[in-house]
């Protein structure tokens, strides 16, 4: 584990970003528009108002979820 980077699991896939990166940075890295997604960090739902600025910790499991069509 290096101190100048942080690795998190995004929907099950490891992604490494520079240390200090936020969940918002991770979403941007993956090309996800913040408005359209919901976020869970280590099984806990995060409010839309708070997740973009939340710093990533090493090994965080981040789930990006969409609201989609359904019955």
């Amino acid at each position, binding site marked *: 584990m290096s101190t100048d980077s942080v690795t998190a699991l995004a929907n099950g896939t490891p992604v490494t970003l520079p240390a200090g990166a936020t969940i918002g940075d991770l979403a941007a890295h993956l090309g996800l528009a913040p408005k*359209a997604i919901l*976020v*869970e960090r280590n099984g806990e*739902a995060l409010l*839309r108002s708070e997740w973009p600025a939340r710093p990533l910790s090493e090994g965080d499991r981040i789930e990006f*979820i*969409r609201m*989609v069509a*359904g*019955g």
Partner: protein
Amino acid sequence: MTTPQPPPQPLVIAGRTFRSRLLTGTGKFPSPEAMRAALEASGTEIVTVALRRADLSGEHDPFADILTHIDPARYLLLPNTSGAMNAAEAVRLARLAASAGLPKWIKLEIHPDPRHLLPDPIETLLAAEQLVKEGFIVLPYINADPVLAKRLQDVGTAAVMPLAAPIGTNRGLETRGQLEIIIEQATVPVVIDAGLGAPSHAAAALEMGADAVLVNTAIAIASDPAAMAHAFRLAVDAGRIAYETGLASAAPVGAKASPTSPLTGFLRPEPALR
């Protein structure tokens, strides 16, 4: 003194008033445009949506962001917990849905068996209890089980949503006898969900006293979804007006017919004059 309103009366769920008694799903439509036109034609005010892991492959999915096609200021979005196999997963999905900042309404559905999609009553009751405690407006999708419906309303769900027939089967009111008991016992609105394949099924559901119906497949897979949505809208209104007005009771099989026209005497001479 207030003037009595003509039927149909509005639907009230958890203190919120709706003019439409037709809830619609958004799955299976051929295109977002067809969905939008159908929602418009249906007159619906409550629309279900689902949650799914975002696809990070970069492939374009026209339905990927439902909120670009449905205005949450116009429709009450009712996220479902479809995909949850147990209470814990359903609670997790509900919390995620709530993180969007929309009203905390949730269609609770837990169906572990992908073949019949029949809801798990035990996990549903456990999840309902938890979600009610967390301040959710809970609308649980259940089998047509009167005992379970009662248990759910007792823990504070805002409605119960018993199925007419398994999801997507279009077979109509197969559970009619059980639904009648649920309606008779209900202290919360009864929304008949799943299996309604024709406007006549929806009309029959409202005629028997269901407060509302939820329709998805029958509208979405029609050759013209907007036209079918309109047909369901008329059927729901017709069924509700008939229910509020009071249906005439049926005579037993074999009973004498009762004429609606005078059996006019002038076509044949009166027997006495022959």
